[in-house]
């Protein structure tokens, strides 16, 4: 009875948990780990566990900053009780994703006008070439213009000294963002560069103020904005 309870506890934990065998095969995992495996390979997580295991049998905690897709983690726990099994638990950073919308600051606007404005003002003295692919069917939407422009400016500033990037703006098919129990379609701005993209927390905060989420993966910087009408 007690064992079942612990298993249930792990299964429903908000933090991902995985148990590997000595060859790196997953023996068991919880719901959060199943979700995490959509964005990171089993091999990568196994290597993370092995490289952070304690020298002797036991548990090893380590504060480490990790980011897989939209989720960040601040620590891991590696459990190593015998030669055949090794367990990994990742600890989530409390999400700062948009959960409320301040309607007072929103104004109906064409998103492409704001992109053009930000691009032209930030890159006035830059030689950056931008391959643009815009879904012009995106309707006018309510945006916090000031904060969104500040966020966009920082993005263009980040690529200012590059030779070329591509920028795609489109509506994400089949994906929605739920804010205050309302479902919103999402418009995604994807900047793709020839360099590895790494953004700082200041840019994340700027995006958050503009009701947007910002992610980076390899050479892509992605801004997702709910389409509020």
């Amino acid at each position, binding site marked *: 009875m007690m064992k079942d309870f612990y298993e249930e506890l792990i299964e429903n934990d908000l933090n991902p948990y995985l148990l590997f065998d000595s060859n790196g095969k997953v023996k068991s995992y919880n719901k959060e780990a199943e979700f995490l495996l959509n964005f990171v390979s089993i091999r990568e997580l196994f290597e993370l566990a092995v490289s952070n295991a304690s020298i002797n049998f036991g548990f090893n905690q380590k504060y480490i900053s990790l980011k897989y897709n939209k989720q960040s983690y601040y620590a891991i726990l590696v459990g190593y009780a015998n030669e055949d099994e090794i367990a990994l638990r990742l600890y989530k950073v409390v999400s700062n994703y948009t959960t409320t919308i301040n309607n007072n600051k929103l104004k109906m606007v064409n998103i492409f006008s704001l992109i053009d*404005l930000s691009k*032209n*003002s930030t890159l*006035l003295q830059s030689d950056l070439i931008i391959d643009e692919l815009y879904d012009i069917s995106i309707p006018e939407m309510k945006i916090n*213009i000031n904060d969104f*422009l*500040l966020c966009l*400016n920082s993005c263009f500033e980040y690529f200012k000294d590059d030779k070329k990037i591509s920028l795609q703006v489109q509506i994400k098919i089949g994906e929605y963002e739920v804010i205050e129990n309302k479902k919103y379609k999402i418009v995604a701005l994807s900047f793709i560069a020839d360099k590895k993209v790494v953004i700082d927390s200041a840019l994340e905060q700027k995006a958050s103020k503009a009701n947007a989420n910002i992610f980076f993966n390899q050479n892509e910087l992605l801004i997702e904005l709910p389409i509020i009408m």
Partner: protein
Amino acid sequence: MEKFITHSEASKKILNIAQMSSSLPVNVLIIGELGVGKTILSKHILHDSPIFDARVLEDMIIKNNFNKDEYSELIILNIDYALNKQEFMEKLNGIKIVATTSQSLYEIDTLFAIKIDIPPLSERPEDLKELIEVYIEKANKIYNAEVELKDIKIDLTQNGISLKKVIYKTVSSISMDDNEMMDSLEYFISKKLEENKEYRDLLKYFEIPLLKAAKEQYKSQLQMATRLNINRITLRKKLELYSKDLA
């Protein structure tokens, strides 16, 4: 309203940004050297808004002589001269601001969603050419002259300001007839006499331009002495006396 010259690609883009910013509820910061056209551009964004110098407005706010509720938008010139920029901007919160500055302002950077950096005139040759033509045409009209670009030594130390000044001055002096020149000199000398200047002090105002012009025209001292019909020793003495001014 004075027009922002847009003959270069950069200034076309700048005007386009200004026009797009005009209808948006965001603050705009215009950055650029003295005389690049910041004030003119600010009027393209906020057409009929009151204009304040930052130091004057800051002083008004401190002395409670400024009623924020009376304004929905403002042009503020030389915001880099405000003493406490952050507090200054906080007091104006809620008003759409278009401000000008000669340098980037990192401490209030996030309060301006749009920043327009105007390059100096020397980096915008197409605009410079147009501006020179406009100023020469206007000056020629005022002074009834026919001065050409080759007659003018362009001065871009203060961009449009120094350019305008040098063109108007050149056209004005070239277009003067003998009487106007003497009137002008008389006025100048009267002012100097008020400063108790003596004959010897004032002589340089005649001699330096004369020697400069002769040096430019005749090149050698021998030629100068011959053409001006003065003794070569006297000429050499004069040239030595004014050597600094003639260099």
